[in-house]
């Protein structure tokens, strides 16, 4: 039916070419593929609404495949791409998740001309451009920025327990017994992926920004003493977490902090959106935040982005979509609703009507900090590594053997071609 419709559409376009030539902008259809449904749906819909205002001749098809962090959407996308039926533009985590899967497969178009034309080479921070580029080009347009290395707590509770916000994991391990004696879980943790999420903050703290980047360009081996030390510290940190972690969602782990049964939680800054919107807390009073211990001055980012697949059926419409996505205007429409900050430095981040105090502070850090990419959320490693990292973590959780785990991590890195 759809095919028939598009055939009719194509025919009518051909017949009415003269009349359409008078209208401005691209026409036809635009199929946008994403896993943004539910809570994230409104932000996407707001962007689509604006797009339709600018490009009235384009019919937008919003194709979503639901499922946590896109595991189902990615599978559907892969079948479509392999079958030669790419959507016009699709959501993908910026960085290696796109590059390692689609760019190396020669299935994406270089967007450097678009970036140059729109002046985005200056509008986006260099650290971000590095993550989304290879020597051959720039591959996607980041629409939002989330931060991974954030420590959440309730300031008044910390006073009550007489502890301060730890500046390093050593500090944290020092106050861990105090909190345990007070009957409080020192660090709230949730289901499997949140464990990996905690690991990347610990690793960043011990390796530093350069060492962290070194893991992914191959200059630092996973079996080097520093990298093995990450697992040792991580094991000690895990001993300060709740035992029922695996059965909690990340929201439930955040709830433990808000409810006062846990002192801290390391989670991405979508937790701020959850606490402000769902729990109705005031940033700074109801909850406080700091960079994860030992990572002050470093912004571990993840970003959703959209790219242009080779063979997109409506290339012009897709380019117009990407233009809106990357613009300061588009980013200010999307991000306040999504609870993230604009990647474009031209975003109106000081506007308190759009961005709450947490987001404003994150935006200030975004402009000034060293930027590195997240592992769990697809920025620094290809999917084959990220996927198999779950096995590496399982080896650690079962054996608690730092050396064996480091060997496994190195083997996965070799297999995924990291540093090759």
């Amino acid at each position: 039916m759809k095919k028939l419709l598009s055939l009719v559409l194509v025919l009518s376009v051909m017949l009415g070419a003269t009349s359409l030539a008078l209208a401005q902008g691209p026409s036809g259809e635009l199929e946008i593929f994403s896993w943004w449904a539910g809570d994230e749906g409104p932000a996407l819909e707001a962007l689509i609404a604006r797009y339709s205002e600018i490009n009235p001749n384009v019919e937008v098809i919003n194709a979503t495949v639901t499922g946590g962090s896109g595991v189902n959407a990615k599978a559907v996308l892969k079948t479509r791409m392999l079958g030669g039926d790419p959507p016009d533009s699709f959501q993908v985590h910026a960085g290696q998740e796109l590059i390692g899967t689609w760019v190396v497969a020669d299935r994406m178009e270089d967007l450097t001309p678009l970036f140059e034309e729109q002046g985005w080479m200056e509008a986006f921070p260099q650290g971000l451009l590095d993550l989304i580029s290879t020597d051959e080009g720039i591959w996607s347009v980041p629409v939002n920025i989330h931060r991974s290395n954030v420590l959440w707590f309730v300031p008044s509770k910390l006073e009550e327990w007489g502890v301060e916000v730890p500046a390093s994991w050593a500090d944290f391990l020092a106050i861990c017994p105090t909190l345990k004696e007070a009957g409080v879980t020192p660090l709230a943790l949730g289901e499997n992926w949140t464990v990996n999420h905690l690991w990347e903050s610990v690793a960043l703290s011990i390796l530093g920004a350069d060492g962290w980047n070194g893991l992914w360009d191959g200059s630092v081996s996973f079996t080097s003493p520093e990298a093995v030390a990450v697992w040792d510290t991580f094991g000690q940190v895990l001993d300060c977490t709740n035992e029922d972690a695996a059965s909690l969602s990340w929201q439930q782990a955040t709830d433990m902090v808000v409810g006062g049964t846990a002192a801290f939680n390391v989670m991405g800054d979508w937790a701020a959106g959850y606490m402000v919107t769902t729990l109705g807390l005031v940033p700074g009073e109801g909850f406080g935040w700091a960079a994860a211990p030992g990572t002050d001055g470093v912004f571990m980012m993840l970003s959703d982005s959209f790219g242009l697949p080779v063979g997109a059926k409506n290339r012009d419409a897709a380019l117009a979509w990407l233009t809106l996505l990357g613009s300061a205007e588009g980013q200010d429409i999307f991000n306040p609703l999504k609870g993230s900050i604009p990647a474009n430095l031209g975003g109106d981040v000081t506007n308190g009507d759009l961005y709450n105090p947490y987001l404003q502070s994150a935006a200030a850090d975004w402009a000034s900090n060293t930027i590195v990419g997240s592992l769990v959320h697809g920025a620094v490693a290809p999917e084959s590594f990220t996927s198999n990292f779950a096995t590496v973590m399982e080896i650690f959780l079962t054996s608690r053997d730092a050396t064996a785990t480091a060997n496994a991590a190195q083997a996965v890195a070799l297999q995924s071609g990291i540093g090759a």
Partner: protein
Amino acid sequence: MTVARTQQPSRPPHRRRRLNRDRITAILMLLPSILLLAIFVYGFIGQTVYTSLTDWSGLSLNPEINFIGLKNYNDLFTGLLDVRFRQDLVNTFFFTIFFLAGCLGLGLLLAVLLDQNIKGEGIFRTIFLFPMALSFIVTGTMWRWLFNPGGGVNRLPGVIGLQPLELRWLTDRTQILQFNWQDLPGIILLVVAAVLAWMAYRRWQRGRRNAARVTGGIAVVLALFVLLGGGKAIPTTALPETHGFNLAFIGIIIAAVWQQSGYTMAMYLAGLRGVPEELREAARVDGCNELQVYRHIVLPLLQPITLSAMIILGHISLKIFDLVFAMAGADNATTDVPGILMYLTSFRANQFAKGAAIAVVMLIMVAFVIVPYLYTTLRSEHEL
């Protein structure tokens, strides 16, 4: 010439079998489905087997695919990183055993109870059979809620004023019945030896002394080989590796048994109705009590049904995916099964060749269950 003439009467039927309208029609009617099966089932099985022998990974437009023989399989069974696959096999093994035992036991019990000519049998039969009508996804979602540590089943004792349970269910990390993967070849050989020894014993009883001596001899040689350390000589993983039964599977087993035991009940019930009342009467006249009637008359007659049920449930459990995916998610390592690992390996890690290898291992496992069954069924139909 005379010889040829006497043979002639046999020729017409032969020719008729070759070129007969009916036969041509039959072939034409069957051809489409045979072609479709050949391409879409066996063709793609062949393609999967071929893929599993290559190094295809990544989604490249023009992928460079090399033939690497059995390396993927070797990795799966001995490689450091594929420890998850090996645990998945162990998980499948234990899951299959407990799932079969649960379904057969509960199904038989329900069937025997319903067979007592109780009132409202039809209603109970429908109630027990009903879960089977649900999809595994629905069952999984429902039981995930029930096994949530903060609610559901754990709260149940609270209804009668007791303390709520503190079971972890699906996220329990406890592992029992642990063994070292390196011991596995030895264990398998010992099991084979035990089976052979049993066969030898049966043959001896039936008076087939020579056959019994041969089988028994092989059993003794195998057992000696293992006991003298031969099992270790078969190469497995480089390092010792512990595997066992994850207690997290208990929740999944409960949900699966809940869904499928009604089905075994229906099969057993049909079987029970097929047991002639005269046989039972005769046994009673001979002085059997009710228990003995079941033990010596009814259960032996139900054996073919048990076999069918085991085959059907067995192949469900060997390839289970949806129930676990819905109940515990894709990344809950303690409840992982090969089906989920295949999906993640192929469609998340983009290692299509290795995913295909996992698929082939699963196919072989299922074939071990199905092929002997089909063989016996087809043969008995032929004999009829």
